[in-house]
């Protein structure tokens, strides 16, 4: 004997199963004919003699704008000399380099410090420009300054970064720890 409640439950389950199947079919966008062994002819199919078929397809390619810059190593600038009677001698460091790839036009490189150096200390930088661009020696601060302008369609490596560190006579010796700042170079639109 089938209990009425159980009969009702079985009926509900069957109804739910059919609803689920309908949903699956709808979601997959398939109709029973899609399962046929022979697919319908493609819209661009060109019938040829015999059993040959020629197909055409559109391939779309694109190149997005790419601006990449990389910098080598960290830098230490030791200020340790002076002529008697004159301020401390500035020190120039030319050991680091940068590389860049630009497939756009009229780009520039700006530079900045994360925080200012203490009063009396100054760091300037000059970048070797890639071919076709121009560079200017600038004192770095927390406000970005233009270092290289007119960068166009270039991929170049081993471009020089020349720093010059200067300290006034009023700057107390720092010890070997020195005073560090992060210099950021940004490749951006002019």
């Amino acid at each position, binding site marked *: 004997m089938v209990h009425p409640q159980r009969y009702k439950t079985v009926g509900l389950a069957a109804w739910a199963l059919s609803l689920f199947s309908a949903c699956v079919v709808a979601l997959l966008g398939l109709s029973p004919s899609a399962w046929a062994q022979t697919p319908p002819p493609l819209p661009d199919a060109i019938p040829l003699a015999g059993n040959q078929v020629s197909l055409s397809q559109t391939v779309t390619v694109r190149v*997005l704008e790419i601006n990449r*810059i990389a910098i080598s190593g960290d830098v230490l600038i030791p200020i340790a000399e*002076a*002529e008697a009677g004159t301020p401390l001698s500035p020190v120039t460091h030319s050991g680091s380099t940068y590389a860049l790839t630009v497939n756009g036009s009229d780009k520039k490189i700006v530079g900045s410090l994360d925080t200012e150096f203490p009063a009396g200390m100054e760091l300037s930088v000059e970048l070797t420009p890639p071919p076709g661009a121009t560079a200017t020696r600038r004192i770095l601060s927390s406000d970005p300054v233009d270092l290289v302008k007119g960068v166009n369609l270039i991929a170049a490596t081993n471009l020089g970064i020349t720093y010059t560190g200067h300290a006034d006579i009023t700057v107390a*010796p720092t010890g070997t720890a020195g005073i560090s700042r992060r210099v950021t170079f*940004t490749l951006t639109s002019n």
Partner: protein
Amino acid sequence: MNRTLRAFALAMFVALGVSHVAFAQTDTEGHTVTMEVAAINVLAITGDVTLTIDQATPGSDPDPVSGSASYAVTTNESAKKITAEIDTNLPANMSLVVDAAAPLGATGSTDVALTETASDVVTGMSTIAASGLALNYTFSATAAAGKLVSTGYTVTYTITN
């Protein structure tokens, strides 16, 4: 279904993230620059000095003679001083003294007799770069000292604490 949707969402997220990096309009790179300032104390002296005693007022000891040179100094430290000493003491009854002009903020001592023991000629010197500061020498000899053939002495100046 949920698993498929999550996989699709993850794939889109990764694809979008990668394209954002690869095709960024602006790229930024940084490195650390460290400036190190050493303790710097340098001193320079301009010119040698020749002092010849050859005059006297009758009845008095020979007249002292004076000569001058100059010095330059740079220090980025505080409370420094300059001392002076001579390589060999002068013979008896002879003296060589020096007056050193002090740079701004420091104090110069007057008529410091030069001996083999270092003596302070400038004190209280801090974070200064100065040049053309006078070094005035005075050489004296009594009649009892007698004559002295030309003799070179080396006066050494030192910046110290």
